[in-house]
């Protein structure tokens, strides 16, 4: 076994962190209004929307990846969008990866935030309204602080899930070093080319990372139940 670790190993790590960070930020911005609506709306069809958001939980990643590939490709809406700046396609690009990751990690962000909003109930918002707080002020001063454990959980899960994503990325990103080759794909490639050292370094890193994530989540949950009792 070759004990020399290739310097290339840092590239997928950096790319993965960039992708996960950007995806998480976008998910917080997009997921919060969706979670708010799902928690508060009385529309009968809201559970259909919730199911749509949750589909990636059960759908094989390759299926989602396949549709995304079609949608982001030259003849799909993604291609049309890309042509605005002279590109031919969004597939096999970093922006394409971000779009895919956002859709794929959406349920992991929306669900905890929605749960937190629902656990809070209507009462604090009603109290705020009777104290002259506009809905906007009540949202920022009451709902967001009260739901903060949900936001934290959502952010951590969204980030971690994006880091660990493989199938969707492989379908729509391929394995272009520095552009679409993320951690999980890199590990696969290292194994394919028998670079066992690099593969095991990355794999071990993922195990440690995952452990830290799960532990953090459990601690947050514990703190959350303590504060509501």
């Amino acid at each position, binding site marked *: 076994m070759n004990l020399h670790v290739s310097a290339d190993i840092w590239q997928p790590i950096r790319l993965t962190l960039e992708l996960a960070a950007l995806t998480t930020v976008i998910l917080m911005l997009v997921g919060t209004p969706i979670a708010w609506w799902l928690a508060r709306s009385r529309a009968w069809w809201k559970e259909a929307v919730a199911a749509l958001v949750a589909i990636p939980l059960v759908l094989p990643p390759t299926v989602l990846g396949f549709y995304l590939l079609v949608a982001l490709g030259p003849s799909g809406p993604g291609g049309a969008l890309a042509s605005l700046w002279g590109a031919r396609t969004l597939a096999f690009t970093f922006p394409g990866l971000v779009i895919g990751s956002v859709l794929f990690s959406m349920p992991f962000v929306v669900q905890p935030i929605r749960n937190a909003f629902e656990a809070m109930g209507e*009462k*604090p918002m*009603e*109290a*705020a*309204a*009777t*104290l*002259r*707080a*506009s*809905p906007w002020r*009540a949202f920022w*001063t*009451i709902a967001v*602080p*009260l739901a903060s454990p949900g936001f934290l959980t959502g952010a951590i899960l969204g980030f971690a899930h994006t880091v660990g994503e493989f199938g969707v990325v492989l379908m729509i990103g391929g394995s272009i070093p520095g552009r679409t080759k993320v951690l999980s794909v890199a590990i696969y490639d290292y194994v394919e080319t028998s670079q066992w050292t690099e593969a095991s370094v990355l794999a071990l890193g993922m195990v440690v990372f995952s452990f830290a994530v799960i532990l953090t989540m459990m601690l947050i949950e514990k703190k959350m139940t303590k*504060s*509501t009792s």
Partner: protein
Amino acid sequence: MSTVKVDFRGTLGRFELNARFEVPARGVTAIFGPSGCGKTAVMRCIAGLNRLDGMCSVAGDVWQDEKTFRPVHQRPIGYVFQEANLFPHLSVRRNLMYGHPGKAGAGAIGFDEIVGLLGIARLLERSPRHLSGGERQRVAIGRALLSQPKLLLMDEPLSALDQMTKDEILPYLERLHAALVLPILYISHDIAEVERLADQLVLMRNGAVLASGPLSELQSDLSLPLALSRDAAVSLDATVLKQDAADGMATLEVGGGYFLVPAEPLTLGTRRRLRVLADDVSLALETPSRSTIVNVLRARILEIRSQSDHRVTALLGLGEDGQGARLLSRVTQRSWNELGLQQGLPVYAQVKGVALVRREEPLA
């Protein structure tokens, strides 16, 4: 005169509501009725938390009619919920200040005044999580008041509390009532609370308003369920005339008569509220010569109602002419017949028990 005018009708959930009343926009108006009769629904509609067809105006200011529906946060209300509903992530002080308009809009109700009135000064830096039920409710009342409301809505603020805590808070409510010129709508299903606090009453049954008006009028209206209930009573606003230093007996004047009541030292000239249960008033045709009953008042029988339990509830007017304050008396059908009592007859009302139910307030 400025009034709170309400007229809501419609269905809320499985609930049919048809509530219409108009009461003066001053003092405490109790909305009274059994659990589930729609009291909370009416109050939530006034606050704008629920929306039903109808109208609502307070002191001439229209909050809702066919064309307008003012959102909750634009109505000058204070709302005290059954559970205090404090913001758990904010300290008591920040809870209190949440609805305060700030320096620019600082109104008539000051922070220090409210904190003193409610006795919450030592709680200010604490988290609501570490307060007792009674403390939480006092903070909630303070928070509502500091938003400088023009109408205070209180939805059974004491119902979630045990009797001891209730007794601890009631004096604070009475102090508020005496210290602030702020109309209060107060939901309760506890007649004892109503008798202590209310000036006006809105009587509700099954989503509809049975009657509304001054408390003593509704209490003594024999066509309403209140006067025929087991704990029927009248509330009388009385003036302290004198007090015997030796035995503590105070003389309080009501329209058409005087009551002698043993009491802690009272301030002469102040107003106190007396409560007299119908069961504690018996009737006689002549004044009894030797008896432990100290209050024997001349009265006239104004109206009677026989009840299914073979008892008679009579409405009395105090004074020889029957023009004074109203009392209720409940006696058995047998004694009624034996004495040959009937409407219009002058009688002596023997009052076995009189309770002072409200703290003193200066003569208006």
